[in-house]
């Protein structure tokens, strides 16, 4: 099992924060932001030392929960500070990006970082449609087309035009191309039938997140079936499972911590916006309809003592087929950094060495 640390540039400030998304930017404290980014590097130097394989960054907007609206900027900053660890960009929200720009920036950074980049392309969470005025009903189609264009921009040696549904270019010919050829290890992220099929058709990896092993396992099973249909088999490393992990010395302590955590997502949309979003934003697991995640805390699927968590990682490998776990060790909803550092140390010493051969 390979292990990735999900870094969110945790923001801590004295002022109380409003609970609604978008969070008014007027309450943002520049010094606290600077501390969050400095803290990120200090933490990740430790993560690298503990022997994690990857650090992952994501794209989220308009809230302090995950302070990384531009994953490419985060990744570049990390690449410059860290020496060995791979940097997983999970990833640019494709439907609201310029796909050619995404292809260029990733190629550039992969080259600058000496081929240490891993890339996940995704549709993004429902609320992100509001960020740059994207019609949620179009986000699926824009994602599929944008991903295809990114792959084409990386691999097509002659200047070309793109006559798409949502994107149109007459001249594409990117410089540099990625250092890793034909492109960095790339994953289509998400549990949807469309993401699994896209990944299978283009020989990409698949990344799922947060759901129960059985739930996301339906998506990875479908992905593997689709790969077989296209005449190939993914390696374990081509399946990433991102999850919350609550690690403590004992099972009791871990569950006690979970009980004390808020059951609500820290910053949720206003109910009427959320409800309207639910009707426009269709989501599925391997073709079976599911609700978009618009409120409620994300589940914690790795929880307990080191022994228990090692067993859970083994089950995750069996049920989900994941060869990479991308873990958030920060107790969900908590603002406190100290438990994160304790969990990190415990994970590095008591879990990491025991899951390598899973």
């Amino acid at each position, binding site marked *: 099992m390979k292990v990735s640390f999900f870094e969110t540039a945790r923001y801590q400030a004295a002022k109380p924060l409003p609970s609604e998304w978008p969070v008014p930017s007027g309450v943002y404290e520049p010094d606290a932001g600077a501390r969050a980014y400095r803290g990120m590097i200090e933490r990740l130097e430790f993560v690298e030392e503990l022997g994690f394989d990857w650090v992952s960054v994501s794209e989220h907007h308009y809230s302090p929960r995950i302070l990384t609206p531009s994953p490419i900027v985060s990744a570049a900053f990390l690449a410059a500070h860290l020496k060995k660890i791979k940097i997983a960009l999970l990833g640019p929200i494709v439907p609201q990006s310029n796909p050619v720009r995404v292809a260029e920036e990733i190629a550039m950074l992969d080259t600058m970082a000496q081929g240490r980049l891993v890339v996940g392309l995704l549709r993004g969470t429902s609320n992100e449609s509001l960020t740059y005025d994207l019609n949620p009903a179009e986000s699926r189609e824009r994602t599929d087309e944008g991903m295809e*264009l990114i792959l084409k921009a990386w691999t097509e040696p002659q200047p070309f*035009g*793109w*006559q798409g*549904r949502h994107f149109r270019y*007459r001249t594409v010919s990117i410089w540099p191309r990625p250092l890793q050829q034909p492109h960095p290890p790339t994953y289509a992220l998400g549990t949807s039938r469309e993401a699994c099929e896209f990944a299978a058709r283009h020989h990409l990896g698949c990344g799922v997140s947060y759901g129960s092993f059985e739930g996301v396992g339906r998506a990875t099973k479908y992905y593997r079936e689709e790969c077989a249909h296209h005449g190939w088999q993914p390696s374990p490393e081509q399946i990433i499972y991102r999850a919350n992990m609550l690690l403590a010395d004992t099972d009791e302590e871990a569950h006690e911590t979970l009980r004390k955590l808020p059951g609500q997502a820290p910053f949720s949309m206003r109910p009427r916006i959320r409800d309207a979003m639910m009707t426009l934003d269709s989501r599925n697991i391997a073709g079976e309809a599911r609700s978009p995640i618009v409120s409620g805390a994300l589940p914690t699927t790795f929880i307990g003592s080191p022994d228990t968590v090692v067993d859970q990682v083994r089950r995750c490998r069996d049920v989900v087929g994941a060869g990479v776990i991308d873990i958030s060790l920060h107790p969900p909803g908590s603002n406190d950094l100290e438990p994160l550092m304790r969990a990190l140390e415990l994970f590095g010493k008591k879990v990491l060495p025991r899951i390598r051969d899973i």
Partner: protein
Amino acid sequence: MAETAFREGHVDADGFRIRFLEAGDGVPLVHLHGAGGLRLTPTHELLARRFRVVAFEMPGFGNSPVNTRTETMPELASTMSRAIDRLGLDTFNLMGTSFGGKTALWLALQQTGRVQALVLEAPAAIRQEGAAAPSGTPQEIARRLYAHPERVSAPLIDPALRAKAQPLVQRLLGPHRDADLESRLQDLSTPTLVLFGTLDGVIAPAMGRLYKDLMPNCHLVFVYDAAHAISTDRPEAFTEVVVDFLERHEAFVISRAETVIHP
């Protein structure tokens, strides 16, 4: 969409009676069809709003008698340029689809001064090794040709007529890499637009770059979510870029799209 009426006509060339369908006014655009024969698509109608579209049925295809006389692609091209002469067209734009793309390239090589611009839809002049033409039932053929066979409304080509033309197609199509043609293409400076659908399962879209490698004035465009029959899968997308190219040639790369939302 207003129906554009295509009128049928015939011309005689090299002893063949050659059928064509014609609609629209303006600069002439001659179309040479693929190995299945002539079949009007929504794209013909869209193009006829801007051009005088003349879609030929090449001898041996459709209901025309079996063609056992034409031996080579350059010969077919020269017959087709005589057919164009009979219509009194001095200069014209030329569009070739798949098999007809190779005919169009030969015609452009033979008539360099007359072909103003060349459009090649999934051309078959360069193919990956082992590329196989669609065959089987009409439904099986449709699955090879179209990304969205369920959206095809006009009747598919009669399999018997398709089968009848196959010996001619096999005789004329030539090897997957045609050294003679490829060496000549290096001197063909006619503005050329090559289009491939991203889902083309007959000729690999990666063949597109080889035209650019060879031809001095070639532009390559991928049409997203289209298979081999681009003009049927995505008629509006296909027409927009083709019209733009035929009107502006190389300058078609300069966007004229407006992004003002409110004044």
